[in-house]
């Protein structure tokens, strides 16, 4: 099977180029297996990967134009040559490795941690199964970056728009019955950019490898804001 891979080494290349590789494929092979085979052919080929089962979020890539995780992307249905590029819109460090600093910065900006003002009880906080269920589809995010780097609003304003991944996390804490900082979280998302640059294009939801729905989470935040303002 033929693969066309984005290559760029800042020490030797003036500009990026696409390079073709042939990989002998077998049944059940994932894209990560093919990339490891390519690395065997050319040791200088560089990409991030680790767990191999879609939980660590290291190997998010642009595969035939769509973002996804290499380790859980089967290659058999992919159109040939399989075009593999780094995540769009981020500065490329080398080959498929991009600089995710801004993405992580936006994540940190939404205060992605539980905030409680009351004194802590000796036991666990009580949370009903129904309250806990509200976190399903939110807490499972692996910070792979597929969503935010597929979002045109994030491409244009990565410094001002929080992006779908960070906003999903923001809602994860707003939705948590234990958290006591909802007002503060909402206030910090005011203004034309941080939240409201989302134009419901839904690329984020379409590409999420964990089948989460950032668009819906963003919608929920907007709904609460609207309710509070009326």
């Amino acid at each position: 099977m033929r693969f066309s891979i984005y290559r760029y080494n800042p020490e030797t290349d003036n500009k990026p180029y696409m390079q073709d590789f042939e990989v002998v494929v077998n049944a059940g092979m994932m894209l990560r297996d093919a990339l490891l085979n390519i690395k065997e052919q050319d040791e200088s080929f560089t990409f991030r990967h680790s767990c191999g089962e879609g939980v660590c979020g290291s190997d998010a890539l642009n595969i035939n134009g769509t973002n996804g995780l290499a380790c859980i992307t089967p290659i058999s249905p992919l159109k040939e040559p399989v075009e593999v590029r780094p995540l769009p819109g981020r500065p490329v460090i080398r080959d498929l490795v991009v600089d995710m600093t801004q993405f992580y910065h936006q994540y940190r900006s939404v205060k992605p941690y539980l905030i409680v003002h009351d004194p802590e009880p000796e036991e666990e906080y009580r949370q009903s199964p129904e309250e806990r269920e509200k976190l399903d589809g939110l807490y499972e995010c692996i910070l792979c970056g597929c969503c935010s780097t597929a979002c045109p609003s994030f491409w244009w304003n990565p410094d001002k728009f929080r992006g779908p991944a960070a906003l999903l996390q923001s809602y994860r804490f707003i939705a948590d019955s234990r958290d006591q900082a909802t007002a503060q979280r909402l206030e910090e998302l005011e203004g034309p950019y941080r939240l409201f640059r989302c134009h419901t294009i839904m690329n984020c939801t379409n590409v999420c490898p964990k089948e989460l729905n950032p668009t819906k989470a963003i919608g929920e935040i907007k709904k609460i804001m609207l309710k509070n303002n009326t």
Partner: protein
Amino acid sequence: MSSSIPVRRFDTLVIGAGGGGLRAALQLAQAESHVAVVSKVFPTRSHTVAAQGGMNAALANVLPDNWHWHMFDTIKGSDYLADQDAVEYMCRAAPRLVVELEHAGVPFSRLDNGKIYQRPFGGQSQNFGGDQAARTCAAADRTGHAILHSLYQQNIHAKTHFFDEYLALDLIRDESGYILGAVVIEIETGEPLIIEAKATLLATGGAGQIFRTNTNAHINTGDGLGMALRAGIPLQDMEFFQFHPTGIAGKGMLITEGARGEGGYLLNKDGERFMERYAPNAKDLASRDVVSRAIYTEVKEGRGCGPNADHVMLKLEHLGPEVIQKRLPGIRATIQTFLHIDPINEPIPIYPTAHYTMGGIPTNRYGQVVAPLGNTAEETVPGLYAAGECACVSVHGANRLGGNSLLDIVVFGRAAGNHIIEFLEENRYHRPLTGDSVDKAMARLARWDQKGEGESVKQVRDDLKKTMEDYCGVFRTDEVLAEGVDKVIELEQRLENARLRDHSKVFNTARVEALELENLMDVAIATVCSAHARKESRGAHSRIDFPDRDDERWLKHTLFFKEERRLDYKPVRMKPLSVDSFPPKARVY
């Protein structure tokens, strides 16, 4: 001393950003100690993220329980090789630490009364060997992910300083034996950096990558273990490597023990629930070593499933879609992705897979690294701590219980953090950087700049993993292990002649993998040498030629030194902190 390398100074250096490292860092940052965490991957990519089933604590939310029963189960599970003071400490601390994690935001699954959901796991009992207990606190089957992300988030809140994508090369040790920090490289630029610290904590995780088929991530290369060995510190009990009973056959992805905790069971080709024969009481929830050996035996005796009769089946269909969707959604997705079947409708082909490094850097229950370097068997190495899978306290002994590793990392990550705070009060100033550690670390790095013909790192790594699987697997004999020792030493020589083709600086993962392979090699040698020497069967170490446990000669910890591949031994601490000792007994489930 190389003077051209930039230096950064912190009170504490934590190497590794899994649950152990992050729990320690949190303790330190909250105490306003200046702490740096070095991780070769972005913290939430650490392998704690892949832990599924849960974390043990005697909360008694579902069934009666107390920490003393948990302590008994852990010691029995360890085949009596665990140190009983450390086990008591861990099991007593467990309920409080789970609550602490819950307060930190971990989205545990819940019971109808709003308390944390707990499920049964292997090797758990009520009342010292009685009925099955339900001790494992779970966030569906993504408990490690939930804990790691919450700990990272709390560290963001505490303003911990992170060095993301920096690889630690070696510890810096002065002539009087103090550890002064580490030499690291920034992967993005390839540039070296010295991080000076008054205290250094190794929290680098396990080394499952020494085996070909494993549940571990690509990054689990035992870096801290290699660093300790090269600093002259021995590794303890490395012959005890856990094979998890339920990896996806032929592929290795983990299927949580929680699948059996929720009521799943194993079948052979005759449709027989064969665990009833091997463990009449606990059945499918016997200890992992017991279940793994049973599966091997079934397959070896011709009762395996599939065209090659090379695996057994894990049946979950009878649990019903609701339980599977609610309690086991992660493994369902994994099975659908990698096997294209749905466990709601079909059984899962499984086979034991290399999973967990019970051995590691010897520590006491404060996380201090201890070694027979002076007059006693347990002299502390000043300034050096270890916690989590890379450490050997030992709370797991010869076989770890499922649900005890997430517990281990938070209990001893926190304990190490607390002890470091005390250590910093007595050691207020950085000691001068002396000794040749930095030069040695730089030489180790420079060695990979050599050009010319030579084997590839990948070839040597593949051969090492295959060799360890063939010669140091579940069932072992003197003959096979002796051959294994020779073969791994041969591979060590081949590694010396391996060469990189890629000598670039920026994000050179080939170089990272070469440095990792040096660590894997050291760990593999420690493992096979320790296994060859131990002439008994205990926990995960199963010798066909010595099928019984031999407490008279072998109720002791192994210590392996890199220098001359020397072995030493030290006694097991049989005395708990406050309760009576659990003397060794026959281990039946």
